[in-house]
């Protein structure tokens, strides 16, 4: 009986605790649900010209949280679209992140929420990987230990103190991918991340995308190769054609 009483007490205690913290879980759940439904990025009348040649003309595009595969032929404007989203090149119109961070009104906060890894990264030859990593961590912030762990998993820590002029294209790519995970981004844009890196790094990358995606980070990935369906569940595909982007 004593044991039974004890057992009942334990059960009651557990129930009370669950009831006590239930509203907290409920609130987090509702908050996450709202976050999921609200667009992480919204493009309003975005236009981009190279000199007088129009390249992008997007009337409206809203993307909820998820993993998106950005498709398009060579020269369709995928990289331009990513550069526009990342704030790397000027454009007409407005991009809003998480419903309230505008590219025009909050340029600094905007850049804190969006990270970009280039298809063919180019850095000054004399900079080391560490120089770039410190610059990103100092400006974008984020958890240094977490980045160190990713650096070790990708094998960047081995060559991080060498100047980028001594890097192979695969090493440069790994560094650029590592930099894309710094800070606390809401959206990470990966331009052709599957090319040039080795198969082990690729599995690490897929794992990182899954982990970050589970935390609510949205990914927009361009790739001419299909994304491995066993590794990633794609929320939707974005098609760049005729200067516009459509979500399927």
């Amino acid at each position, binding site marked *: 009986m004593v044991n039974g009483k004890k057992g009942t007490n334990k059960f009651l205690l557990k129930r009370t605790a669950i009831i006590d913290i239930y509203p907290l879980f409920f609130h987090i759940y509702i908050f996450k649900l709202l976050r999921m439904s609200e667009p992480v990025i919204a493009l309003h009348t975005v236009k981009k010209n190279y000199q007088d040649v129009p390249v992008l003309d997007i009337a409206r595009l809203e993307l909820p949280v998820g993993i998106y595969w950005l498709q398009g032929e060579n020269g369709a404007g995928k990289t331009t679209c990513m550069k526009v989203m990342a704030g790397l090149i*000027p454009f007409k119109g407005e991009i809003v992140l998480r419903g309230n961070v505008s590219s025009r009104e909050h340029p600094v906060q905007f850049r804190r929420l969006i990270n970009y890894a280039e298809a063919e990264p180019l850095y*000054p030859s004399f900079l080391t990987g560490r120089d770039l990593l410190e610059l990103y961590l100092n*400006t974008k912030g984020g958890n240094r230990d977490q980045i160190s762990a990713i650096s070790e998993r990708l094998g960047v820590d081995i060559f991080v*103190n060498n100047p980028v002029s001594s890097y192979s294209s695969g090493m440069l790519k790994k560094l650029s991918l590592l930099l894309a995970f710094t800070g606390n981004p809401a959206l990470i844009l990966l331009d052709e991340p599957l090319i040039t890196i080795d198969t082990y790094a690729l599995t690490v990358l897929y794992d990182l995308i899954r982990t970050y995606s589970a935390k609510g980070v949205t990914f927009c990935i361009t790739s001419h190769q299909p994304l491995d369906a066993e590794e990633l569940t794609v929320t939707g595909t974005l098609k760049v054609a005729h200067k516009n982007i459509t979500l399927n």
Partner: protein
Amino acid sequence: MRTTTAILSKIFTQRFYIQNTGFFLVLFYLLFGVVDGSSLWNYHQSLMLGFLRNNSFLIIVLLLWTSYALKCAGFILKTFQTQGYDFLFPTMGSMPATSRWRTWWVLHTAIYMPVLVYAAVAVVVAIQQHYYLKGIIIIVFNIANCIWPLTLYERKLAQPDVIFFTGHMQRWLNKHFTKPPVLFFLYELFTNFPRRIFSTKLFSAAILWLTFLIMRQGEYFDLRGLQLGAMVSVLVHMQLMVHNRAFDDTYLNFMENLPIRLSTHYLRLICIYILMFLPEMVMITVNAYTKTPWMGLITVFCTALSLMILFRCLLYFPKMNPEIHVRYVLLTSFIVLFMILGKYEWPAIALLQIASAIIFFKKYRTYEPYIERE
């Protein structure tokens, strides 16, 4: 079938002479064009006897030859770092050591040849005139100049990440010191374009030296004269400003994705030019601190730096090519010059600063390199 040496000669020797055609034209003009043909041999014999008889002159000549050897070594090392020449590491690295050393020697000697030819003639003259010791010194020195660069080439092949001569120090710095963005452009100049920065600084120093010389000879000191000298010195830096824009366009685009405030970007720009003009500021201070109060020196520095910053900011207009830039720079310089002559230095500085800030804050985020159509 072409031999390895022939292919490598095309990569190193031919490229060296093609790239330095202007340099050799000027050199040949100075050595052979300034005197008429009949007295050419006498001219050179006198020149050679001059450094064979005088030890100080000989040291200067040997230093000049060494600086040429440095130029040759710098060219070969830089070729390894040039985009598209990465294949040299695996190909030359696979060669047997003896044949590689021989190839290095052939390549280096081929581009060092002009000095060897002149030195050989000087040695003949030294023997004829019984200056045997000087002849031996010239021979030993030139043999050394043909050998020591080979060790650098070997080291470069083994350590591709070492940019120039400072292997261990560079590695230590890379490990313990993070380069701040304000130093990026200066690093670019010192590592990839040392000749450009050194020649600019040399011209700039020469202009300031001439300014002080003229004022000393005239036995007067006028702050406006010094400001004029500083202005001309700023104009010498124009090619570095255009280079700065090209560097930012090509390599620093990634920084646009960083959450950095516009004011911080502007501060970085100002600091780059303060650091760049620092040697001139030191030179001006050393030469003028006894002749003018501190406020005078500050006025000179502020004028020069304000001009530099405005000239750089003008390049945030995408269509501002070097030709148009020169026009605006000269126009601004004339206006500022007249304001200085009229003793309106501080209003000029204020106007330059306001103009720079307006251009920068308005143009920075919308700037995009402009590709001119042919």
